[in-house]
Structure formats: structure tokens, C-alpha cells
């Protein structure tokens, strides 16, 4: 944001990927834009801005939500996890590794949304069935992969998760 506009700005505080971040945003600022342009976390992508594609999905207090259908002011004081926060201490998460291993991404534009969605899903359901996996990723569009390797990656991530915790 180079030039300030006259609009009233709200001071907000978010905990993003474990770090306390502050921003002054107009009320209409979408969380997606706040993350990307105010906080410089451009890993969260924007593919439609009407809630259908899922590329902008982030975790809000641990639950996946569309950041393009959320105002930044609304989530003042809450915790956000973005794709940048999925790796822990520099180590890729099982979900991230599985997506790469199974060739679950091509252009990578949809990928952050899938990774966030699947991370929350596998946290709550560690041994999902085929159908549950399909349902879990059914709200995210990918124009490149035809989804087959994404589905494979979710199963593989569950496997890695089990191996590493077992």
C-alpha cells in the first residue's frame, strides 16, 4: 500500500503462523488481501474472490475458511495459519511432502488452498476412507492436475503421518 486513501482504518492484531502481526486496514479489506498485501504473505492465492475455487483457503483458529469471504477486521484477535506456516522448524509437513512426492501439483496456484484444507482434515481424521478424502477436497478447484494425484497425495500424507507418529 503505497498511497493512503481517506478511508477509515481499523487497527487489527492477528497471530499469523504463530507470529503476532499488526495492520491498519479499511473495514472492507478482505483477509486474503490483508495477508498477501499488508502482511506480505503471498503464498495464499486468489482465484475467484467469490468462494468457489478454494485457492485462498487458510486456517482460522485451526479451521479452514475462505480468506476471500472474510474481512480482516472480523478476525481481529484470531489465529491464522497460511501455507507459509505449514512447515515446522524448516521441515516440510507430511501433507507438503506427499503433494510433492505424488505430483499433486502442476502450476501450484491451487496448492496452498489444498494444503491448508488437507492439513486440517488429516488432523481431525487420521485414517480417512476414500470417500472422506474425496469429500474433504471437493471444495477446491484445480485446473491442472485432474485431481488424481491430489487424492493420492492425501492418502500418502495420512500414511506418512501415521508412520511418523507411530
Amino acid at each position, binding site marked *: 500500500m503505497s498511497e493512503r486513501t481517506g*478511508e*477509515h482504518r*481499523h487497527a487489527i492484531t492477528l497471530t499469523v503462523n504463530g507470529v503476532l502481526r499488526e495492520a491498519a486496514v*479499511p*473495514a*472492507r479489506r*478482505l483477509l486474503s*488481501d490483508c495477508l498477501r498485501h499488508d502482511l506480505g504473505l503471498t503464498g495464499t492465492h486468489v482465484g475467484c*474472490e*467469490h*468462494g468457489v475455487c*478454494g485457492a485462498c*483457503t487458510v486456517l*482460522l483458529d485451526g*479451521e*479452514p*475458511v*475462505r480468506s*476471500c*469471504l*472474510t*474481512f480482516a*477486521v*472480523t478476525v481481529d484477535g484470531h489465529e491464522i495459519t497460511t501455507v507459509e506456516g505449514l512447515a515446522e522448524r524448516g521441515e516440510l509437513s507430511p501433507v507438503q511432502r506427499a503433494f510433492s512426492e505424488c505430483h499433486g501439483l502442476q502450476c501450484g496456484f491451487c496448492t496452498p488452498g489444498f494444503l491448508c*484444507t488437507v492439513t486440517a482434515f488429516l488432523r481431525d481424521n487420521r485414517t480417512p476412507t476414500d470417500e472422506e478424502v474425496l*469429500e*474433504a477436497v*471437493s*471444495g477446491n478447484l484445480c485446473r491442472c492436475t485432474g485431481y488424481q494425484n491430489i487424492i493420492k497425495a492425501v492418502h500418502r500424507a495420512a500414511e506418512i503421518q501415521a508412520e511418523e507418529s507411530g
Partner: protein
Amino acid sequence: MKPPPFDYHRPAGLGEALQALAEAGSHGKVLAGGQSLIPLLNMRLAAPGHLVDINGLTELATISADASGVRVGALARHAAVERDGSARAVQPLLAQALALVAHPVIRNRGTVVGSLVHADPSAEMPAVLALLGGSVRLARLGGERDVHARDFFVGPLESACLPGEMAVSAFFPALPERSGTAFCEVARRHGDYAVAGVAAAVTLDEDFRIIAARVACVSVGPVPVVVDVTGVCGQRPPASVDWDEVARAVQDRIEPEGDIHATAGYRRHLTGVLVTRALRGAAQDAARSGANDAGEGRA
């Protein structure tokens, strides 16, 4: 696709929220889950002067169930209601329908009450409320009123919630014993709004004959179309009902329109198919619950 500017209100309590809405009058809108409102804002198809954000009003994030039914607060998200064990036990149709609302991630944010106020004729929750004969509690500065479902849905995207009013909760009545429900729909893609959909409730007598049967149809009229088919079913066991006749009775009452996804004729046909499916499903469900009750009674 960026929302136009608006004045933002973040009330600390219900009173403050109603105050803000009263002041904003016809320029004010409630922001609940934002899953319908924000797309409209992003496309600049809506431009309210004031938004009253109720996401901080955690006291409205309530789901309470008792023998009479389930009351859902304005901030109860689809996902929370779907998962709520007691709500599911008292009124299983809620969870049955919610599984068909959008995708899990949208359900994490969208609210049941917001969905009712939004009054999309293709949406599931309005049909559920209409089928069950529930009501919505509307609060305004200095007052409150309960509006029955039959009066609540006024037209496409139009509910009885007036400027200055806020829907604080909705009540979904329980059904009598030996009742069952089902929600069947066909959508173009999994998670899309339905091309046609039918919610059904059936109640059986002690001999497992139908004594009440109702359906509510989505996407085939300006508001959910509720049809009582008890008479057409006759007081017969489900297996001897002439389902085609029942389907025809419902088809006579709907007013489908064609659009880019389906012709009016297909919607009419599909509604007939789904009426049969949903009523049979509901009757089976009722028989199961009747059998369970009987089993419990003996034990």
C-alpha cells in the same frame, strides 16, 4: 472484484447491534458468516452503507435442543449444527440437509440463520424450516417477534426480516414419535446449489401406516414449496402407496423455471423423482425409529 466501502460496526453485545441496525435503517445489513453477502459485495452487486458484524457476539453461537425442537442461534455455523449430537438426535433433518449445503469449508463459516434470512430458493435450510413449520425470532431495538416459516420466506432472496431487525435465532420443531426425514437433491456438481431438491417428513401410526407426510421442494419456486401429501398417501403402509400419484400431486404445485442449468420440464420431472425418493427414505427412517422406540419400550 473488491467490495465497495461501508461503515463498519462491531457491536460488543446484542443491544449495541440492534442500536446500530436501528440507526442504519434500510442502509444497514447484518454480516454473519459472509458466505453469501461477501460474494455479492465483491461483485459489487450489493452496497450497504453500514455493516453490523455479529461475529463477535459469541452469545449467539448457541445450539439448544430439547424435546420440542432445536433452537439455533444467529452465530451457530453450519458445521457446528451439523456436528451437534443433541440437535441431530432431536431433529436429524438438520444434519441430513446440512451435509448438502456447499462444501465443508463454506460450512465452517456460513450460519444457519444467515442462510434463512438470505432466503435463496435453492438453499436447503429454508426448505427445512418450511417443512418443519419452524420459526425465526427477529429482534429490533425494544422488541422481538417470532415469524412462522410460512410467513418468513417472502420471495427469492427476500425474507420477512425488516430493516432494523436482526434474526437472533431460529427454531426447528421436533417431529412426533415414529417420524422420519430425508433430504434428496440433484446438483450439477457436488456441493452446488441444487437443480432440484426435496426435504420430506413422514410420521407413521402404530401399525406403521402413514398418518402424516409432507415435502418441501427447493429450486422450483420463489420460496420453498411445501406440500402436504398425507391425503394422497392415504393411511397406508409405505409399500402400498401409489408414489407416482404422490409425485404428481407435488408436481402440480410447483412452479419451476428454466435457467442455464436445467429446463423447467426437467426440474418438474426431477422433483417428482426426488419426492418419491425422499418420502420413501423418510418412511424407512420413520419405521426404523418406530422399531427402535418399540425395542426400547420392551427393554
